[in-house]
């Protein structure tokens, strides 16, 4: 019934419009860029090129950019998609000849995909261009460190997305996301403390399911306590296979929450 010679580009246009809204003031991206450049110039002259050092460097240097990335993604979801739901712009988008999942994908690619690309783009550029001798031989370590560190922010972003879709209040969703992020950090400290006390890594293992960077951390720096014979007793030293398993589980979790959000948006959400 609809025009068979349809020549429109609804997906690209909605994606472009979302990008324009989400990245109107690229201040955070600019700071992430400066930070990445500055730190990797220092990294180039100060780090011994070996796997553990590369992990230590990448994970420590990711700290601020990941937080910037997280704020950016939270903002995009809460004020981009959340704003569309609150103000009603989504109704306008639903008057275009595009399936709901495609609108969802366009919004998600703009809010998360583009931010991820910015973060990866800046950091990879800095890593490869400014410290190639150190980074290129250990590129798999670099990538694994990235993937492990990003899964928790991505999980939080997915939860915020689901929450935004359900309550349709972006401001509330962003607060929940920030609280969850800090709760995660506090829980990690407590879990480490308790694990040392009871000499069991159970809590840290549970935490690694949602945040595999914890397992990765103890893969490179074993969790141990002083033993009675003046040596050390290792409480947890996950193997690389275990780390990868935690990572797989964490990404599955991210995927599951995204899938749930998609299902809600495309099949259940009434406007």
């Amino acid at each position: 019934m609809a025009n068979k010679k349809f020549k429109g580009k609804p997906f690209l246009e909605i994606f472009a419009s979302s990008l324009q809204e989400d990245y109107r003031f690229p201040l955070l991206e600019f700071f992430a860029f400066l930070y990445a450049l500055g730190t990797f110039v220092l990294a180039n002259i100060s780090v011994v090129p070996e796997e553990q050092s590369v992990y230590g460097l990448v994970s420590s240097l990711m700290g601020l950019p990941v937080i910037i990335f997280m704020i950016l993604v939270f903002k995009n979801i809460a004020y981009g998609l959340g704003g569309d739901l609150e103000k009603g712009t989504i109704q306008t988008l639903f008057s275009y000849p595009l399936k709901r999942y495609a609108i969802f994908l366009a919004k998600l690619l703009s809010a998360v995909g583009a931010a991820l690309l910015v973060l990866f783009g800046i950091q990879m550029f800095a890593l490869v261009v400014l410290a190639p001798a150190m980074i290129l031989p250990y590129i798999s370590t670099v990538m694994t460190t990235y993937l492990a560190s990003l899964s928790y922010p991505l999980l939080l972003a997915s939860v915020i997305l689901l929450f935004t879709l359900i309550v349709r209040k972006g401001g509330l969703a962003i607060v929940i996301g920030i609280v969850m992020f800090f709760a995660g950090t506090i829980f990690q400290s407590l879990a480490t403390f308790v694990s040392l006390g009871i000499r069991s890594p159970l809590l840290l293992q549970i935490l690694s399911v949602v945040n595999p960077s914890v397992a990765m951390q103890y893969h490179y720096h074993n969790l141990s306590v002083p033993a009675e014979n003046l040596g050390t007793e290792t409480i947890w030293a996950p193997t690389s296979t275990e780390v990868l398993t935690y990572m797989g589980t964490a990404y599955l979790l991210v995927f599951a929450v995204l899938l749930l959000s998609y299902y809600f948006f495309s099949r259940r959400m009434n406007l």
Partner: protein
Amino acid sequence: MAKSLIEAKGLSKNYGKVTALNALDLQVEESSIMSLIGPNGAGKTTTIKIILGLLRPDSGEVRVFGQCPWDNPDIRTLIGVVHEKAYFPAHEKILDYLKRVCRIFGVPEDRALEVLKLVNLEEAYDRPIKALSAGMLQKFGIAHGLVHRPQLLVADEMTANLDPQARSNLLDLVVELHKSEKVTFLLSSHILPELSRVCDAVAIISYGKVLASGNLVELYDKFTARVLRISTDNPETLAQVILNLSYVQEVNRDSRGITAKVAEGAERKLYGDVPSLAKKVGAKVLGIESGSASLEELYRLVVTRGGGQ
């Protein structure tokens, strides 16, 4: 027989314990201008949202251009939408955004300026959407709804924020588009006199049900035959005595007068009886008219009778 562009059968929708639609049936025929009329909360907006695929009914089904609007977004190339409140990306300039909509629908970008001219917004082409006044935003919403030359335009309270002149112009535009481009309209509005200027069919909704629908002339025949309108300064007292007449079947009153439905062949009798009855109760008769000329009157009659005769 004209083809139905919209066909809704047994639509029901509840919001928690509130019933918005209760087995609503509706048909909108091709090349018609149909008005959805009803009091606040009658279910007009819910009906429109279901037709547009924004809401899913709890039960019943709706076909627009023969397809379910929830699952078939392709039909939106044939439908223009004007919401009561228009929502667009606030920072985009109006011409730029309309050009984007042209690209979305695959129509030439020149059409953007063309529709801005149609709604007299061409001079504001470089303003951001957020800088438009409520009336301008409404006009922009209409331009947005028309930009891809839809075959069907669905508008929920589209004249809500417009001044009288703009409203009048817009209604002229509706008539013009209907004539020149054979656009079918489904309009909902509270302003009945203006709807009666343009529509040729109505669906009267109350409590989530269509009480009466169809061609306007036929509805007038059905509901306003043997109805007399008596204008008086004392409708309350006069209504009581008129109701006692054996040939009067129904009396409704408002602040300005009385509407009485009489038995077949009894119109002349009522004409004769009213002056003496009025004199008896001390009421002054200002006029007696046969039939009911306004859409407002038709609406009131249908709602009062709950759709039945």
